[in-house]
């Protein structure tokens, strides 16, 4: 249904780039770091700890990935990034679980520390290297891309037919199977693996139980503190991998400010995804999509005005059905406003375009909040004596 909508919009707004193979593969590229950060957030929160430090752990990942990547190979960089993230994840556990530091405070401290640490370490290791400096690293090699052989040749004629929907589907299929980074594939595997481990294994059940009611887990011989160490280490490792993706796939260099809030957007996708890996990934793809459009063709953004108008119109109808007068009013104004903007101006100011992914995050979160069901033990430190 979403596809139909986008396909129609691409025609109406005359912005063929909306669903082109380039846009699809760019969306994937932008979405993967957010998916990995989101998975990191998911692991931590399912075990009852909020990991605001994801942003910092991604920064560590980018730095470690570049440091090891430019000296040896990008794959060594990836491993180093995972290790760096894991160490900071375990540090977050040490702070929040063993020392009882507030989870938000520890996370913010990690974010601040990672920023400073990146600069400090760059001044030692990157300055004086070819292309390196205090705010960026030397050139790092790239992780190889792979394609499904032959598929593009088969699908190309279909894509060129310019039949609505079918051609769009072909474009999407080509975009998703051509020139895909090995790390993207790894991320896809990790989404599935996270679901499988969390929801199908005894380890996952114990981890989730510690996020819902640690006292219950403890009374059954499951040590919540140990589970939280494990969960946060995995969480940090995933964030570190997300950082590695930024230096070895999305670019080929470490640059200060490169993470640019992706850790936080990742956290938001956890909420959007209702603490489920699959839905989280859909959320991340949505943000990746808006992010990709922004960088490709500014006029494409105008097409999203229509999408927004239609979505709000749908919400208006739903609000009328549930007799929520306030919501009906607000949604209707938004729908009419966006539609009028598109017909009247047809342009989105460039300042706004850069802000679009964040605005999407904000909108989606504020609309999704009514149905979410977070783990109950989230954010609450567990101490054994208090449980009795």
């Amino acid at each position: 249904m979403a596809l139909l909508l986008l396909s129609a919009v691409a025609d109406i707004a005359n912005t063929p780039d909306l669903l082109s193979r380039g846009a699809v593969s760019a969306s994937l590229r932008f979405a993967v770091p957010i998916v990995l950060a989101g998975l990191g957030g998911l692991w931590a929160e399912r075990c009852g700890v909020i990991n605001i430090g994801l942003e910092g752990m991604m920064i560590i990942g980018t730095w470690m990935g570049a440091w090891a990547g430019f000296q040896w190979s990008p794959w060594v960089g990836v491993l180093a990034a995972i290790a760096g993230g894991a160490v900071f994840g375990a540090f977050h556990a040490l702070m929040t679980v063993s020392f009882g530091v507030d989870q938000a405070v520890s996370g913010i401290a990690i974010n601040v520390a990672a920023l400073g640490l990146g600069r400090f370490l760059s001044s030692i290791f990157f300055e004086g290297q070819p292309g390196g400096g205090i705010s960026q690293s030397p050139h790092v090699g790239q992780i190889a891309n792979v394609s499904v052989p032959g598929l593009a040749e088969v699908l190309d004629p279909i894509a060129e037919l310019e039949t609505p929907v079918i051609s769009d589907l072909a474009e999407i299929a080509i975009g998703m199977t051509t020139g895909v980074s090995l790390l993207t594939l790894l991320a896809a595997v990790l989404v599935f693996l996270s679901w499988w481990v969390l929801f199908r294994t005894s380890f996952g059940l114990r981890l989730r139980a510690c996020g819902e009611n640690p006292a219950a887990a403890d009374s059954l011989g499951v040590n919540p503190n140990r589970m939280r160490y494990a969960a946060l280490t995995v969480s940090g490792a995933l964030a570190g991998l997300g950082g590695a993706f930024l230096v070895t796939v999305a670019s080929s260099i470490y640059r200060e400010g490169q993470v640019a809030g992706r850790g936080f957007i990742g956290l938001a996708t956890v909420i959007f995804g209702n603490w489920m890996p699959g839905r989280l990934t859909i959320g991340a793809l949505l943000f990746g999509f808006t992010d990709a459009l922004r960088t490709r063709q500014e006029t494409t953004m105008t097409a999203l005005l229509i999408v927004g108008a239609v979505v709000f119109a749908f919400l208006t109808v739903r609000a009328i059905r549930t007799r929520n007068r306030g919501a009906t009013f607000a949604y209707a104004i938004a729908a009419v406003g966006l539609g009028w903007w598109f017909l009247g101006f047809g342009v989105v100011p460039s300042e706004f375009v850069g802000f679009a992914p964040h605005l999407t995050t904000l909108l989606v979160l504020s609309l999704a909040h009514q149905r979410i069901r977070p783990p109950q033990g989230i954010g609450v430190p567990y101490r054994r004596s208090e449980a009795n």
Partner: protein
Amino acid sequence: MPAPAIELRGITKRYPGVVANRDVNLRVESGTAHAVIGENGAGKSTLMNILYGMVVPDEGEILVEGATIPMSSPADAIAAGIGMVHQHFKLADNLTVLENVILGDEPTGRVGRIDFEAARARIVELGDHYRIPIEPEALVADLSVGNRQRVEIIKVLYRGARVLILDEPTSVLVPQEVDELLKNLRRLTGDGLTVIFISHKLDEVLAVADEITVMRNARTVAHTRPAEITSRELAQLMVGSELPTPEPRTVEVRPEVGLRLRSVSTRGRGHETSLSDIDLTVRSGEIVGIAGVEGNGQAELIETILGLTDPVSGQVLFGEEDVTEAATSVRRRLGLAYIPQDRHREALLLDAALWENRILGHQMHPPINRGVWIDRKAAREDTERIVADSDVRTPSIEVLASALSGGNQQKLIVGREMAGDPRVLIAAHPTRGVDVGAQAAIWTRLSAVRRAGVAVLLVSADLEELIGISDRILVILRGRLVGEFDPAAIGPEDLGAAMTGADAA
């Protein structure tokens, strides 16, 4: 004679400044239901936690079927065949029944994959065998309290427990659920399992226990059988002295009205019950009891009087004053006091000191309020007064509310609500989950409040309490007041019938 299922010898546990258990001896025969009773703070919970390995005793030994067992963690207890159903259930609400039951002891296949089929089969089999049916796929959050307790019992049985410890199992249940539970417990002992349960409710203890051990001041003081003792004797063993009885009504009800509801109706949202056409008058110096099965509109009635729910029609009056439109803060200023049913959620900040809790609800009233400031000194002084007047047992007013036992917390709340001479008092289950000593103290207090001319609305599920201290009893059923009774002329059975609507048929 076979070795007892459980034997505790000379158990002593000291905490800084207090001895929780002093030379405690307990002998539980196999296949029996054994009740451990005592006031709050008598050391029952500590003893049960020792038995379940959550607390390690300083001295003494634990014997399971004649053999000494080292107990240092719940895992040891589980291995020895001992399981515990905690008073506050240890369940994860957002997990399914199945997940809660198997947690920590999952049947796994390759690489830690849970064998859900095997787990489901085993749970269903256990449920059938002990006739405790549960739905493995249901979310615990959707279950009633009684069903959650079943999950806890199945959880313990799933681990192969031969000895079940139940910590105040009936305190959270409604009467029908209590009957069901007691039936289940008898079935378990009939099957050869051993049940140890802690209770405050002496009639239940006498009904279901084979043997009774009484604890007082950290010691075991008596061991007896239901046939050999009356509930009054038991209660005296628990408190160690003669019990006060609810004093007879000696004061005349005054003519002036304290609280009046005129044909009040509300619209219930979601699971709430709608009130329809409630007419209710509580005179000054009168206690009006509201009886009813939980969920028949008691909560909505209280919220309407407090001003948390707006009625769609009708009026709420304090005396002659119409407060239907008044905010809760205005109503409190006009002399409304409230003892909520859930101390921890509504009445206290558990992580705040006693004197800070004294401020709650009185932040805008003298002596606490002085202009825009809170008078901390006055708050402390008045807390000292309450602690002394109401016999709140606490080392100081600086300790956290969470450090007090339930009964002492409740005494503090009653004292706070009585400060500032209220005109109307809403008491919701004021003695729920408190020991007999505190219960008697709170009853005495309510009677004193009535003597002082306060209009008291008492909502309770404890029929003895309603009959014992109310001047009139009104029965609420599906949001309507369906009957009025004279407590002197009605027994618990008749009242129970009226509550379920059985008498109308």
